[in-house]
């Protein structure tokens, strides 16, 4: 059997195992984002949004929908990989992979594909929920698809690095709680950065999630605070850097080999 064939079957095996995992625990993985986002749509979109009026020329509900969808995608993709991989490390079941002829790249892609599947799946669920509250008119479907896929990839890779480096369960929640959540809330999900003083506008531009949210919003509504080409390029750079970092850690055996 060729090595390529082994890697392909191994990739599919990891991917299917990951999908089976998040489907088995759908009450923890798929349902909560749907409920949380419904609450956001009701409270911020309908109740408060009516008083806010328009943001960047669109009604507030339409403005926040793309940001909330993107928020669901990135948090689901990240947490899927970080928690699943760390749990496999914790139970030592990752050793099943380590004793097999699985290339580090196959292992990485398998877990990342699993994270992307959950991120994109949750994104679709939240989009369907949002259709109950507003009508979505897609400005550029290719930008929408590209940014969702890239965002899911970047955050799945980030989750993988987190899972590799984590030594206890607390380590898995540190990044989502102290980095991703604040950057998301300050990343233009609920407001346009044009509302901020000039200094804070410049500071906001350092936030990668702002670029993600605005690129996705551009794909949906055709409005953006930033240059989407810069954002897409940045996502590609993140994919490359995180892939290389993950491979370096895997080859070193960080968190895996004694």
């Amino acid at each position: 059997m060729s090595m390529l064939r082994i890697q392909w079957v191994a990739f599919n095996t990891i991917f299917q195992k990951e999908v089976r995992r998040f489907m088995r625990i759908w009450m923890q993985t798929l349902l909560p984002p749907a409920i949380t986002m419904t609450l956001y749509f009701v409270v911020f979109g309908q109740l408060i949004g009516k008083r806010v009026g328009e943001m960047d020329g669109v009604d507030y509900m339409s403005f926040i929908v793309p940001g909330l969808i993107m928020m669901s995608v990135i948090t689901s993709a990240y947490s899927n990989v970080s928690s699943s991989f760390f749990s496999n490390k914790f139970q030592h079941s990752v050793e099943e992979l380590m004793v097999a002829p699985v290339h580090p790249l196959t292992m990485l892609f398998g877990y990342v594909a699993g994270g992307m599947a959950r991120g994109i799946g949750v994104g679709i669920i939240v989009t369907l929920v949002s259709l109950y509250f507003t009508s979505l008119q897609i400005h550029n479907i290719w930008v929408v698809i590209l940014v969702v896929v890239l965002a899911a990839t970047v955050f799945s890779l980030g989750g993988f690095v987190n899972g590799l480096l984590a030594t206890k369960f607390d380590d898995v929640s540190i990044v989502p709680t102290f980095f991703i959540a604040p950057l998301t809330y300050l990343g233009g999900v609920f407001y346009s950065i044009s509302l901020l003083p000039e200094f804070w506008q410049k500071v906001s531009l350092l936030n990668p999630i702002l670029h993600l949210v605005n690129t996705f919003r551009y794909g949906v509504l055709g409005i953006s605070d930033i240059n989407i080409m810069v954002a897409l390029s940045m996502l590609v750079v993140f994919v490359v850097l995180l892939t290389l970092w993950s491979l370096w850690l895997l080859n070193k055996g960080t968190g895996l080999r004694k």
Partner: protein
Amino acid sequence: MSVPALVVKDLTKVYNNGFKALKGINLSVQQGDFFALLGPNGAGKSTTLGILSGLVQKTSGTAEVMGFDVNTEAFSARRYLGVVPQEFNFNQFEKVYDILITQAGYFGLTHSQVKDEAEKLLKELDLWEHRNKQSRMLSGGMKRRLMIARALIHKPKVLILDEPTAGVDIEIRRSMWEFMQELNNQGTTIILTTHYLEEAEQLCRNIAIIDEGEIIKSTSVRNLLTQLNTEVFILDLNTTLPDNVSLEGFDYKRIAEDGLEITVNRGQSINHIFAMLTEQNIEVRSMRTKSNRLEELFVALVKGYK
């Protein structure tokens, strides 16, 4: 001549805390062998097996499985290797059958390619009726057998077992021995570590004793046992032992009304004992060794090394 199943040369391992687990060990295991690596806790057995299976990084030296270096040709080496670790290491929430199919997938084998093998292994190891249970629902013995089934799903040529029967009851242990012996008879090279010296004596042809990271003896079990200078037997008698029993040339003592303990030195014949007992109208019902022979030797070797 076929390539050895395992060759280890000058293998060392120093952990990050400075502990020298292996101090340059050398080993060679031929294909088809049933080989035991014995040693007290912390001797370096699991570290050795960990390096072979890719779970532990060596510090220096080389290790080859079926002629492939476990570091530089890791993927080729791993295709020939099945590993049963000491600790349970499967996903507690996965079903028994899925664990086997997933492991096969990591070796490039699809469900359709291994479903017959999975069924055969699960049936042979009495797990077939538990195939749809989550692994956490299994008993300790079942979990041990599941790890063996998982390690065999890709039909490895070399099977590494790190204390495979630890914590299982005698009946299951015996059935696992039979299974491993059958596997070895079919050509699989088996390398095991164990604390049960009886296990090594019963199953293995060759043996290495490791202590404090060094191999202190590597030979055949038969050779090792010939080094025993004395052996103690217990004789259960059909008649009450008379007070004036005489076994000239042997050390012996009465341990019950109908029981005798006799020390036989190397070169002495057991037939001689029976002849003397028969002359005195003493009938022997059964005979057994007082303690595990290998265990005595093992203790002596490790003590002597220290």
